[in-house]
């Protein structure tokens, strides 16, 4: 079945030789909209070194999520250069990018995106199974215990609260020990206290695993917890740090 198994490692450079975990070089993305081409990203340059926690802030529609999708290999750029975890995306096809994600990237979404027909344990097991892990279930269970859900293994997403679902999503994202963790407003659907717990957990896991974290957020306090913050507006990175007050959208 795996006829599309283009090995992305063939083009990967050694992890150790490159201190940069994420490199975006003049990244442009133009999409065809109903009213003609829309420039989503207009030349983004970004260099994130390994192990960094990067906060990304900016108004709605500024291109934050698009940038995250590009780094995850879920969106192809129109021009420019992308290198993540030492892997150049240019020669990779869709399936090679999927295998790259499987081995190197974990993603957490605002809307959790768990598979509703699988219980918590199975949801966390899926990426491990795709990676061919022999002890997938044990590792998944450990990971769920690590996020405090050892007692909810058999529960289906529909039987879990929002906070619990997001913890399952976190466990799933960290299960394969990714080099890069991408989080798109992970607390957006959660109340304040629950959101705080998730963020604590996120940073705890980041600290323990030395993963490179990219966190998209509207939350000023949350962004402050990151090692580094970039501001994005209208498809461009417009600044670094929180010296100017972060743009707070109406959400």
């Amino acid at each position, binding site marked *: 079945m795996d006829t*599309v198994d283009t090995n992305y490692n063939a083009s990967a450079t050694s992890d150790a030789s490159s201190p940069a975990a994420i490199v975006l070089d003049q990244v442009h993305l133009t999409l065809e909209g109903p009213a003609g081409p829309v420039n989503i990203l207009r030349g983004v340059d970004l260099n994130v070194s390994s192990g960094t926690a990067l906060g990304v802030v900016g108004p709605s529609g500024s291109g934050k999520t698009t940038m995250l999708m590009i780094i995850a290999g879920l969106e192809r750029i129109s021009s420019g250069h992308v290198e993540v975890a030492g892997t150049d995306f240019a020669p990779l096809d869709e399936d090679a990018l999927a295998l790259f994600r499987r081995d190197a990237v974990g993603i957490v979404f605002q809307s959790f995106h768990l598979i509703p027909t699988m219980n918590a344990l199975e949801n966390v097991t899926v990426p491990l199974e795709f990676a061919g892990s022999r002890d997938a279930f044990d590792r998944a269970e450990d990971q769920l215990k690590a996020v405090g859900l050892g007692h909810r293994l058999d529960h289906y997403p529909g039987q879990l609260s929002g906070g619990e679902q997001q913890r399952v999503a976190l466990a799933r994202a960290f299960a394969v020990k990714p080099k890069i963790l991408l989080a798109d407003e992970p607390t957006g659907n959660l109340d304040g206290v629950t959101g705080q717990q998730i963020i604590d957990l996120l940073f705890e896991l980041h600290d323990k695993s030395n993963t490179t974290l990219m966190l998209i957020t509207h939350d000023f306090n949350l962004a402050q917890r990151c090692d580094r913050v970039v501001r994005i507006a209208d498809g461009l990175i417009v600044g670094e740090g929180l010296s100017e007050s972060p743009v707070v959208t109406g959400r």
Partner: protein
Amino acid sequence: MQGLPLSLRFAFRELRGGMRGFRIFLACIAIGVTAIAGATSLNESFKAGIAADARPLLGGDLQIDADSYPIGDAQRASLEAGGTVSAQVQLRSMARTENAGGEAINRTLIELKAVEETYPLYGVLELEPSMPLRDALARKDDVWGVAIDDSLRARLSVDIGDTIYVGEAPLQVRAVVVVEPDRAVRFATIGPRVMISRDALPSTELVQTGSLIEYTYNVRLDKSETAEEMRGRLDRDFPTATWRIRGLNQASQGLERFLDNVTLFLTLVGLTALLTGGIGVANAVRAHLLGRLHTIATLKCLGAPADTVFSIYLIQLALLAFVGIAIGLVLGATIPFIAANTLGDLLPVKAEFGLYPSALFKATVFGALTAALFTLWPLARARDIPPAALFRSLLVDKGQLPRRKYLILIGLIATALAMFTIATAERPLYAFYFVSGAAVSMMLFHVAATGVMKFAARMTSGRNSPTAGRPTLRLALANLYRPGSPTTSVVLSLGLGLSVLVAIALVESNLNAAISEGLPADAPSMFFVDIQPHQEEQFRQIVTSMPGVEKVLTSAMIRGRVVRVNDVPANQVKVAPGSRWAVRGERSMSHAAVMPENARLTHGEWWAADHDGENMVSIDVEVARDIGVSVGDTITVNILGREITARIASFRDIRWQSGTMNFTYIFSPNALAGAPGTYLSTVNSGPGTELAIETAVLNAMPNVTVIQVRQALDMAQGILDTLGLAVRMTAAVALVSGALVLAGAVAAGHARRIYESVVLKVLGATRGDVLKAFILEYMLLGIATGLIAAVIGTIGAWGVVTEIMKIIEWRLDYSLVLTVLTSCIAVTLLAGVTGTWRAMGTKAAPYLRNE
């Protein structure tokens, strides 16, 4: 009824969005309604055609059916007092060609009809080349003329002007019969038509006492008397006459019965299509209402009572159902017109095309009841959606039952549907079988579907399950049992359609097998009919001297009719429909000193070989049961005007399937001593010897008729093949509905598939992985559906074959079941992959963005 206009307004407002989501809903209703409306209209149009052509079809205003001997002069005179009479004599015989030396070249079985000059009284007989019938059949240069069926030309390789021989008579072929007005479809036709003048009949020397001959007298009334008056007069003047008088309403009873059976079958197929389609209707309604959950919750928040919500959607769905029914009615009403162009010449009757309101009404009721049955359940549940649902992020379908009053209503509608099916059927008993069968099958399929879902759930639960380490397989299995999974509806609808097809195909293959191979080794290879008593000895000598002959059996055959059972006139005896033939009309009877083979004595005793004294009779045990007699009762038969009463000595369980000769009524030899009859003989002979035996016998006795079993079976096989194809094609209509439901289920799962493929891709699944998951899902669904359908269809076929058709040797055509199974998997896979392909091509990113 203040709420009604409001509900109506809302219902229409909601429909402004268009009917795109309702294509499957409409199609599911329309297909079934089309089938029922079409079948019923076709039947009506043929019946109207028959009624319009009743006189030509019957051959007169009245027809007197007079057994195997002509009516007396007084009777004929009485007929002629009412109008013009045209007698005809029909019998089966052989036609042959001879070479100059008088040796037969070709021989074939024919149906001979000898007519009087007045024939036909109604309608037009068309000949090719065109000429008056009188000329075609007249005696010219000492040779009688003959008009033949076109097929006989090829069989005997003769043409116009050539001479053929029937019995002892040479006949010159003058014309081909193109249209014979009083010949309706005769599926039991054994040979091609040969028509001669009644005056030519004696020269054939085929008419001898006891020969199998049918005399009929058609009467065209002059104005002096109505048919009823004449009937009354004949009954009064000839109270003991054994003839049967048929009027215009019985012009083509055989054809009408055949049409009724076809219509019943088509209606049941249409109903199956409706029932399978009903699942699609329910699915469509559920999907529609699921999409309206927020609207419903909002309406309730704004103060709409649950009943208003219910009526809004009821009105909407009722409107849509009637659109579907209307489509079906329009299509169904045009079927007779289409059939006219395609079937035109195949059928003997001109269908009278038109709109048949009763047919359309019937289809409308079926469509409306089915739509109501399958709409109410999801609708009644939607009624109870709590307004609070609006404030929850996810509306979960908890699958609770509708309220009791709706459950009762649904039960009533189901009962009404069942009763209407039975009440409107031409054969209520069969319709009852169908309804029970459908109910049991639906239940079985439901149980089976639940079983599949439980099994799938078990297979995926736990880390030691077979799916550990195979996330695509787990996903595929999980999709079979998740809430709202298509498993139940696909198993039910596609499974039902498929099992009908499996059952029909298996019944057909069993019938085929029974015909082609199922003949027991001891079955005879040929029958000789109409051997005259003085020829019996000669016949035996000829046949036993032939090489290859293994066994020769001869029995006396006497034509007679049952006139009384225990002093009750035969027409007043209560008889179960299955055995009516045994006490109505003329039958072949026999006498024997020793009990013939292939029967088992069930009651009473067989008489001594030299029995003398009271007349005794042994009868078929099934007939005995159906006419309600026991051993010791008496039966009176009329043989050529002479009444013979015999006491029932025994019942026999006859193995009719053995293909050997046997008789329903066998008398002790003393009872029929002196009764005029012929001999019937069966001959068992080695393969390839039949023609020589036939030739030897027929050269010596041209009056004898031969039926080659092999040929007769081939002919039956041919008819069966043609019918079988038609039956299978019609049954496929039910399958189309099933496929529609499948397509609907696949379409309904589209959003889910996209979502799953996106999430899987995020987690590092390649397109191959995703494809594998969906292919597995549909393959498993196909395997489960196919297996269940194969099992249920096989059980159904087994029941029909062994219980109704009473074919002893049931055989399971594995390759056929396997073919159906593979096709089912192929179809589900195709549907699944088509749907998946579109999902695969979807970009992930847009689905992952925050709301």
